[in-house]
Structure formats: structure tokens, C-alpha cells
């Protein structure tokens, strides 16, 4: 890429943010952080990052999905809806099982989904591929 890609990490755990930030900065990306769903959305809207790493945020599992839904579907984030989202969860479970939806309702799915602990090479490979698109 000609300019440095900018990545926003939305995660309520300070330590996860710190280590994910170090990992991505180590690959040469410019990184910003959002410590909650609300602050993350504000940052996404203001900064228009090239990619978002979104934690499912287990303190209130709906939060991560609300952010996902807002970014993808709300008109106010219209231009942000094309930002690729990599979702990360500490739950070793298919997100469809975590939030069962009625038949016929499509689950809003992130562009990529990882569970913690991250498989670092796979995660970085995925981030790189998405930024090249």
C-alpha cells in the first residue's frame, strides 16, 4: 500500500488492546483504540480507519454485535459500512450459536472471525489480505 494502513481496535480490555496494538504496530500499521462500543463507533466515524478489529466484549456480549450492526447498517455510518471488520471473541463458539436468530433472519456476520487466543500468523495474514482488497 502506498500509505500506512490505519487500524482501529475496539476492545474493553486494556491488556488485549495493548498487545494487539503492539502486534499490529510491529507490522507497520497505524493503530488507534476504542475502549468501549460507544467510543469505538465515534472513532470509526471520525477517523474512517481502513480496518476495524472488534472484540465481542464479554462484559456485555451484545455490545460488539451492536457496533457491528451500527457500522454495517446505520445510515449515519453510511461511509463506514465498507470498512472491513475482523471480529475477535474469547468464546470458543460459533457466534450463530451465541445469539440464536429466528429462522429466516440472517445473522450479521463480520468479514472475518477469530477466537482468542489468536493464531498470530493467521490473524496477521487475514488483516493483510483484507487491507489489500
Amino acid at each position, binding site marked *: 500500500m502506498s500509505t500506512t494502513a490505519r487500524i482501529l481496535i475496539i476492545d474493553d480490555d486494556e*491488556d*488485549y488492546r495493548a498487545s494487539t496494538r503492539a*502486534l499490529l504496530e*510491529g507490522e507497520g500499521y497505524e493503530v488507534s483504540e476504542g475502549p468501549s462500543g460507544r467510543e469505538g463507533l465515534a472513532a470509526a466515524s471520525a477517523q474512517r480507519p481502513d480496518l476495524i478489529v472488534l472484540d465481542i466484549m*464479554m462484559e456485555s456480549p451484545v455490545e460488539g454485535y451492536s457496533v457491528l450492526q451500527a457500522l454495517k447498517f446505520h445510515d449515519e455510518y453510511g461511509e463506514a459500512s465498507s470498512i472491513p471488520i475482523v471480529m475477535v471473541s*474469547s468464546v470458543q463458539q460459533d457466534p450463530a450459536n451465541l445469539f440464536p436468530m429466528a429462522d429466516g433472519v440472517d445473522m450479521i456476520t463480520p468479514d472475518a472471525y477469530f477466537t482468542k487466543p489468536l493464531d*498470530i*500468523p493467521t490473524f496477521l495474514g487475514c488483516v493483510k489480505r483484507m487491507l489489500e482488497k
Partner: protein
Amino acid sequence: MTRPAESTGPIIVIDDDAAMRRACEAALTRAGYAVEVFADGPSGLKRIEEAGAGLIVVDLKMPGMGGMEVIKRAKRLNSDIVAIVITGYPTIDTAVEAMKTGAYDFLPKPFTAEELRVIIARGEERRLLAIEAKRLREERRAQAHKFITFVSHQLQSPLGAVQQYLDVLRYQAGDSMPEQHRLWIDRSAKKVTEMLAIIGDWLTISKVEGGRLATERCPVLWQELTPEILENHATVAESHQVTTIDEVPADCPPVIGDAIALRMLLSNLVVNAVKYNKPGGEVRVKAEADQAEVSLSVSDTGRGIASDQQEHVFEEFYRAAGGSAAGTTGTGMGLPICKKIAEELDGRITLDSRPDEGSTFTVILPRSPTC
């Protein structure tokens, strides 16, 4: 007099003597109870099941199904049911037998309406106490479950954060770091991973204890689960140089169970069979059925378990000492989880093992009634 709000269902009176039925009905109705009377065991039992009755009055000597049998079957429908026996042939022997069957009290005929009411009131009190005791037991169990869940989550996220720091450190500084330091990081990461596995198992077992793991009761086919589980563990088996063999017949009848819980059960058994095997060994999964049950067995060709340790392997946190567990990692909770799942599904798990020949774990579960 009104019946307490917690009461469930009417009092069921079963007696072949029409005059006695009328007398009981009149006495209990007057005392404010809802009463239904039946002339024989089968029709009374049918109503007990429908109405969820909590208290029954049963005549001992009836043509067809006798009172003892009625009580036995009623207990099967509702283990907490309070049964009061009435009989025109009161002897010590019949009284003793009635109590052994689980009858709560014994009333010889003839009796007055007042005597019946006193004994019913006592029975009701006993029933409500039992309900209260059960509620308290469940509350305590729920609290224990809540505690272990809370503690586990509190431990899980900081450990997860430590794990990711170590992973990033290893990824970024791996080659530039002194060999000794890398080794320490590897060891720390391994220990953190083991701790996380233990916490995961705690959470699982607390779910099993709360009865919340095997919640479904659906027909499950071992011949569908087995290939999937063996495939999931193919890489681990390969790294241990162990061959897995699926001998579950395609026409094996289904068991009644919870597919997710049974997958976990089989997965635990297969992982153990691989882990405690010898290089070049085999893991064989077989199944056979009789009229009532399906037995699924997982055999390994490993070092086996010494006879004095076999009874302990299903205990929580137990890991066989000496040879077999050496050099392997485990939480000591895999087999207790298997046992709890099997028992929750009205089944059992058995172990047959000989040192140096291997072990066979067999899970026996009821067949699904649809077949």
C-alpha cells in the same frame, strides 16, 4: 380451611370399595381439599401422571394391581409423592411392607373422618417441607454454580490477556531473544494454556453439575458422531503415531441424549485414548445394542491403568500416578465430565483395563424409544 398455594394437583384416592371412596371424598372435600377418587390402580395412576398429584391415599388390598404396586409406580412418576396407605387388614407385616415401599403413613380401617383429616394434614405438611427442602438444595447448588462461574470468568480474562502478551512477545522478539528467555516464555505460555484448560473444564463441570449441559433429549446416532470426532483429533493422533479405527455399525440404533454433551463425552474419551497410547498403537471405537441399551466403547492399546487406581479415575482432579500420566498434560476432569454426562442421561460409564494391554471405556445409554 384452604389448601396452601404451593399445592399441586388434587389428592388422589384409590380404593376398590365404593363406600370407602365416597366417605374419603366427603371427608376431604369438607376439609377444603380438591379430591378425585378412582376404583383401581391403573386409572388412578393415569390421573396422578396427568394432574401431577403430590399426595395419594391408596387401599392396600385391591383386585388387579395391589396398593404396594400402585405406590411403587406412583413413586416412579413423582419421587416426592406422599403416599398414605389404608387397609382393612392391618398387620405389622403389611405396615412394615407399606413403609418399605415408601408409604408415608398407614391408616387402618375403619377410621373416622377426623382421623383421615389429621393424617392428610400431616402428609400435606410433610410434602410441603419436602418441596421447601428441595428448593433450598437447588438454591444452594445454583449459588455454588454462580460462584464457580464468576471465579472462572474472573480468572479467564486476565489469563487470556497474559497469554496474548506472551504470544505477541514470542512472535515479535522470538529470534532476537536469548535462548534461555525464549524457553521461559514458552514455559510460561504452556502453563497459562494449562490453567485456561482447567478453568474451561471447571465451567463445563459446573454446568454438568447444575444439570445444564445435557439438556436435550433427542435421538443421537453414534455412527454419525464417531467419524466427526475422530476427524477432529486426526492431527493429534498422527503426532502420537496412533491409528484410529471406527467400528461403529451403520445400523446402530440411536441413544437418547444431547448431541453436544455426547460429542464432548466421546471427544474426551478419544483424546485420552490417543494421549495415553503408545507410539504405533490403536484407538478403536465400537458399538453394540441390546433391546434396551446401546454400549459404545473406546479402547486403546496404551499402558493401561493399575487396578488400584481404576476406581479413582472418575473422581474430579484425579490423575493416575506414575507411568501413564507422566509426560502428558491434563486437567484431571475429562473423565468426571464423561461420567456426569452419562449419568445425567440415565446411563453409565465403565472401565476395563489391564496394565500394558490398554484400557476400554464403555458408555452405556438407553436406546431411543422411537426405534
